[in-house]
């Protein structure tokens, strides 16, 4: 049996640990927010030559991600169409008619932006954290500062700009391909007429659903740019430290993207968007 003193010690240790992780969390979010603030200020005061670097980053974000985004969106679009049709048949009404609009809603509001955000966090966020982390541990960040350049403006601003432009565009692309996946299932497996399918989804494409999804994509872009840069710039401890920073950048971006998605969805429905 444990004495009451031991329990008290346990409790103290528990609270100490809780306090430490609370402080750590505050420190982390404070640091990341500060970096975001500096980056946004940097965006406003960036000289024109930064756009060249942003374009270079955009190529990495956008162009090179097209194939993987296409594959995943297409198959998810098909899976969504099957699921919706199957569930609705269980409810026993002539449900296939509703498939196009339900599938479009799911894809435009949720699957398009979230899936694209996760892919880009894994592809571009990881690469970015690893690159900045390597620069940090090899002294290149110090060298930038010694040459009177601001690492945030030189390295983070172009990344943020590229992601904020590239992720919504990629989301549009993912939306289109996801809808095509649903269309394929709807017209071949469920015998909906192509014209009808197209009419039913086209109505939604002009609705707030599309816009809502793109706003989410923009928020995810800010999350990915901020977290991957923050993790990269504070990497320490050699190659291992770079690996750690990269992993953390991806995991934390994933968690924040999903959390932000839930919050935004709730907020959009609350304000009637």
């Amino acid at each position, binding site marked *: 049996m444990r004495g009451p003193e031991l329990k008290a010690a346990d409790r103290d240790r528990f609270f100490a640990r809780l306090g430490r992780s609370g402080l750590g969390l505050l420190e982390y979010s404070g640091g990341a927010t500060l970096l975001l603030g500096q980056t946004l200020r940097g965006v406003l005061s960036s000289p024109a030559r930064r756009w060249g670097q942003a374009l270079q980053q955009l190529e990495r974000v956008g162009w090179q991600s097209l194939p993987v985004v296409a594959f995943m969106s297409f198959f998810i679009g098909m899976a969504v169409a099957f699921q919706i049709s199957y569930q609705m048949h269980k409810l026993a009404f002539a449900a296939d008619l509703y498939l196009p609009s339900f599938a479009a809603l799911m894809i435009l509001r949720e699957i398009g932006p979230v899936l694209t955000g996760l892919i880009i966090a894994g592809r571009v966020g990881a690469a970015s954290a690893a690159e900045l982390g390597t620069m940090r541990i090899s*002294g*290149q960040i110090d*060298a930038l*500062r*010694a040459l*009177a*350049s*601001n690492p945030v403006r030189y390295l983070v601003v172009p990344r943020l700009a590229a992601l904020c432009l590239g992720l919504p565009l990629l989301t549009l692309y993912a939306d289109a391909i996801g809808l095509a996946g649903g269309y394929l299932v709807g017209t071949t497996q469920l015998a909906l007429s192509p014209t009808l399918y197209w009419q039913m989804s086209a109505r939604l494409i002009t609705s707030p659903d599309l816009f809502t999804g793109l706003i989410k994509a923009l928020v995810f872009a800010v999350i990915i740019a901020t977290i991957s840069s923050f993790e990269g710039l504070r990497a320490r401890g050699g190659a291992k430290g770079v690996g750690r920073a990269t992993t953390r950048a991806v995991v934390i971006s994933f968690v924040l993207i999903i959390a932000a998605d839930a919050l935004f969805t709730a907020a959009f429905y609350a304000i009637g968007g």
Partner: protein
Amino acid sequence: MPSVAEPEQVIEVRALHKAFGGQAVLRGVDLQVRPGETLGILGASGSGKTVLLKHLNGLLRPDAGQVWIAGQEITRLSEARLGPIRLQLGMLFQEAALFDSLSVGRNVGFALYEHTKLSREQIERRVRDCLAQVGLAGSEQLRPVELSGGMKKRVGLARALALQPRILLYDEPTSGLDPAGRAQINGLIRRLQRELEVTAVLVTHDIESARQVSDRLALLHRGRIVLSAPPQEFFRSAAPELREFWGEREQPWNIIQA
């Protein structure tokens, strides 16, 4: 040799303290460097030489104490305010710290592209001159990954020279080089002193290199400068800290490095 009549110091460090995670590294460093002088700071590995050097251009902020560069106190300046001062200080990093996403030419011309309104042709000419100065003429198109350790350091030096700084900071300029590479770097440092009349601070544990290029030597020991004198006098000193530092040379690791 600097004129004794002009007492103004280019670099002055007063009572500098710095600790990392409760571990005191600098415990009250005092230091002066006169115009045109080359000061070599010797110290054992891990004695805080690089930490001290990084305070001279504001890469690190002290816990206490002051750093004066050309009559201006820099420890409380913002990063933006430090910019113009950093442009007067060229720094050669220990591992050269070249930007590996940029070509050699872009590395050397980096500060010129970023901070001057010079035309592309003017910058390219300046880059060519700087690379020629370090014996790497025509290497503009190479990538840093294609270079040997000694070449990287020379490109790093060319990058530091591009803006014609008044002060040069060398962090272990000869570490990791073979004897030929070391001789080459030492020769370069000496030539730059003669031709450009820059003020320089060099931190190293390479005693021979420090002796060859310095006007004055200082010993950093347990976070303080414990000895500072012209080379001849420095090596005749009977200070126990110096003997301890010499003793460190007998360690196998240092013999391998030497």
